[in-house]
């Protein structure tokens, strides 16, 4: 049953990723990306990482994707996107793809992949909570500093182009 669910998730995930790569419509691509992100959350659940799955849904589907959609909506020429995709760096891209494929296949073939029956994993959120408050207290507070930097930095950097764009739209 788990194998079946895993393959359904894989099929949807890879299918949506291909759709993102090949559709000429950027808004459709963003929706395909939502599907990819959501099925990745399914993989996390299958691996027993329930908190990570919720995080994936909340941050990637609920936050980052909305940010990307906003980015698309702000594009001036969104209504005049041409239907073709031009490949510019065919040679270098091919080289990178072949090298990546070789690395992946070599790793897959050379790894033993031991399969073991394990008990269904317990919910992880409370253990994460205890670890954040004890062993990882300092990284937890450092994460707050990181978020502070993001909060101030992102807004300060985005502020200038946003103001410029507002002034242009008024002129």
């Amino acid at each position, binding site marked *: 049953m788990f194998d079946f*669910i895993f393959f359904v998730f894989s099929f949807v995930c890879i299918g949506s990723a291909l759709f993102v790569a090949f559709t000429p419509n950027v808004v459709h691509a963003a929706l395909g990306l939502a599907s990819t992100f959501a099925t990745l959350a*399914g993989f996390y*659940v299958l691996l*027993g990482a*329930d*908190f990570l799955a*919720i*995080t994936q849904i*909340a*941050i990637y589907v*609920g*936050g*980052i994707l*909305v*940010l990307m959609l*906003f*980015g698309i*909506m*702000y*594009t*001036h020429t*969104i*209504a005049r996107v041409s239907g073709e995709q031009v490949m510019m760096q065919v040679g270098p891209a091919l080289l990178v793809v072949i090298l990546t494929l070789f690395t992946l296949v070599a790793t897959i073939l050379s790894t033993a992949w031991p399969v073991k029956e394990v008990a*269904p*994993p*317990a*919910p992880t*959120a*409370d*253990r*994460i*909570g*205890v*670890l*954040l*408050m*004890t*062993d990882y*207290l300092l990284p*937890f*507070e450092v*994460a*707050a*500093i990181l*978020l*502070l930097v*993001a*909060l*101030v930095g*992102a*807004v*300060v950097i*985005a*502020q200038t182009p*946003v103001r410029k*764009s*507002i002034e242009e*739209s*008024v002129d």
Partner: protein
Amino acid sequence: MYENYAHVLIFALVAVGVVVAPLILFALIRPVRPDAEKLSAYECGERVVGTPWIQFNIRYYLVCLVFLVFEVEILLLFPWALVYGAFIGGPEQVEALAQGAANTSEASGGMAFVAMFIFMVILAVGLAYDWGKGYLEWETEITTSPEIEEKEVA
């Protein structure tokens, strides 16, 4: 744990099915005779003006950036909120949750409270900075300018 997520999966499948099943069903049984009038977007009987691909108000972007940071903060609040009761109860209750994964000898409700208080204060500084610098201001006198509205329609 998997049983709980089976419920989530069923809900997700029903949600997708409710949308997809009628689309497929009606595509199979409806006659297809399109004309320009039928293919136009239906907007409650009003004639559609302009394109739906207008440029959104770019001020949303700053709000979205701030939202993303606070969403991460809320997600870090959840595990803390789950175990805060145990921390008030004392190290034994925390140990029962941690199952030997963490050093819980110094766990106490006051410590958990102070730790999260510091976390919140650090982020409040960021919010205060953005607010005080006026980055969260909406500048309504510009938004309500009729020129923009005309441009969006055109």
